[in-house]
């Protein structure tokens, strides 16, 4: 077993430490077909915590998120969300448990309009009144989307698509957001806005975020904790502050 360096976490005195974990992953192995991509991955996300998943291309970051939301089948290990065994939950049910996955490439349905994409995010909800309220909250949060309500997804810029994907996820009022490379192809200013929004959401709603990001600096700037994946294994698990300061680690795995 590739032992994650969990020791140093115990010395952190952040308030999240005391909370019961929302997501607990232990010994997770998963992949496509015969060759596993993830080996023995362990991680914990507590309510209101932002955990960054870092690592080079091909390290297994996207596969990790896809396995958590059930798009990729786990071959072994344990995934517990608020005490529930996620490996037994079908993809269609994840959103009902409070898990929102904004996939790589954002997953805007380009053939549908902005408004249709957003409404799609709330169709599963029984509480129709709150789904409607959440929709108008998202429009307030992203005025750019409100102006483009009737535009088709394929007419949007990259930044607008990211706002749309994020907004659509928020309509489900998730407890855990799995966010895959929000900065991909975006101008630094827009990336900064989106990351700032994540931190704001965490403060206001207690949203927990598992954030996959190539842009290590920005990710560690908002994250509480980070795990570093290399070739499908967790090589380091530490507070974001310590990861920022760990020069050896940065050179070895993160490239800056």
């Amino acid at each position: 077993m590739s032992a994650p360096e969990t020791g140093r976490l115990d010395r952190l005195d952040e308030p999240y430490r005391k909370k019961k974990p929302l997501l607990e992953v232990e010994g997770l192995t998963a992949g496509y077909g015969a060759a596993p991509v993830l080996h023995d991955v362990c991680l914990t996300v507590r309510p209101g915590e932002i955990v960054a998943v870092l690592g080079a291309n091909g390290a297994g970051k996207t596969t990790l998120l896809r396995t958590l939301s059930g798009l990729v089948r786990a071959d072994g290990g344990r995934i517990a969300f608020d005490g529930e065994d996620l490996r037994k939950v079908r993809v269609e049910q994840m959103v009902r448990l409070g898990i929102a996955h904004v996939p790589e490439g954002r997953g805007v349905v380009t053939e549908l309009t902005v408004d249709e994409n957003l409404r799609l995010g709330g169709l599963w909800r029984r509480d129709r009144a709150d789904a409607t309220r959440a929709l108008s909250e998202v429009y307030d949060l992203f005025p750019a989307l409100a102006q483009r309500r009737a535009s088709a997804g394929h007419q949007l810029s990259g930044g607008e698509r990211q706002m749309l994907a994020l907004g659509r996820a928020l309509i489900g009022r998730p407890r855990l957001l799995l966010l895959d490379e929000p900065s991909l192809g975006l101008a630094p200013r827009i990336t900064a806005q989106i990351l700032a929004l994540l931190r704001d959401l965490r403060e206001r709603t207690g949203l927990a975020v598992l954030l996959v990001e190539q842009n290590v600096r920005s990710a560690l700037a908002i994250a509480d904790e980070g795990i570093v994946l290399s070739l499908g294994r967790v090589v380091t698990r530490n507070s974001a502050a310590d990861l920022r300061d760990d020069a050896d680690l940065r050179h070895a795995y993160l490239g800056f």
Partner: protein
Amino acid sequence: MDRFIYLTFDGLSRGAVYAAFALALVLIWRAARIVNFAQGAMAVAAVYVAYSVTEKTGSYWLGFAAALVFGLLLGIAVEKAVMRFVDHSSPLNGVVVALGLVLVVQGVLGIVYGNEFRPVETPFARDAFQIGGIAVLSRYDVFVFAAVGAVVVALTVLFTRTSVGLRMRAAAFAPDVSRLLGVPVGGMLTLGWALAAAVGSLAGMLVVPTELGLNPNAMDVLFVSAFTAAVVGGLDSPIGAVTGGLVVGLLLSYVSGYLGATVAPMAVLALLVVVLLGRPGGLFSSSKARLA
């Protein structure tokens, strides 16, 4: 001029049926990315059910309703029992399976009902009204227009105004994303097949009485025209299917009226080739929207 008016109305009423049938093809294409070559055979099966019910009860309308319900159920059965297990990595797989289904359905119909042509009744007279001495439309033609129009309106409302329609479109365009948003993608696919088969059955009910009669192969020729209509309009576009249907109907009518009925199938083929060369995605394709 009289002849032209006559041929135009004749073409439009034929075209309406092609439009309905093309719509059925478009529905499945949009939901499952399969051209359902078994649509014709499935529709004939539904018409046979109507035939049996009408024979037993003496009511055309009971038979009509039975055909639509049977179509719906047959669509569900085909999706759940056959198409769900087709490997979609190559588009040819679905086509081959659909062609196999044609053979099975036509074989079973032949065993149960025999292969002879059976005359089918229409609910309304097929004698055309005379306007200014020209035969234009029969009561039956009006019924065909009304039925196809109702289907087009119903499908438009379903897809653009209801949450089920939104789910169906999302599931078709982006299955993984839809599942992440809680859409039961498999169920939407089944629903798509059910609707498409019901619409196909309706088209069969409308067209079979105007042709030679009921026979296991009754829809084979019609399928070619309807498939052309769907491709001309763009397989992704319901409006395209309707327009394509009317265009093919008019073309067939003019060509058989002015040049002779034997040339008509060639005209359909020529239209197909011209459209595929000029606009491979069909006249109503939105090339931008299909990048994803």
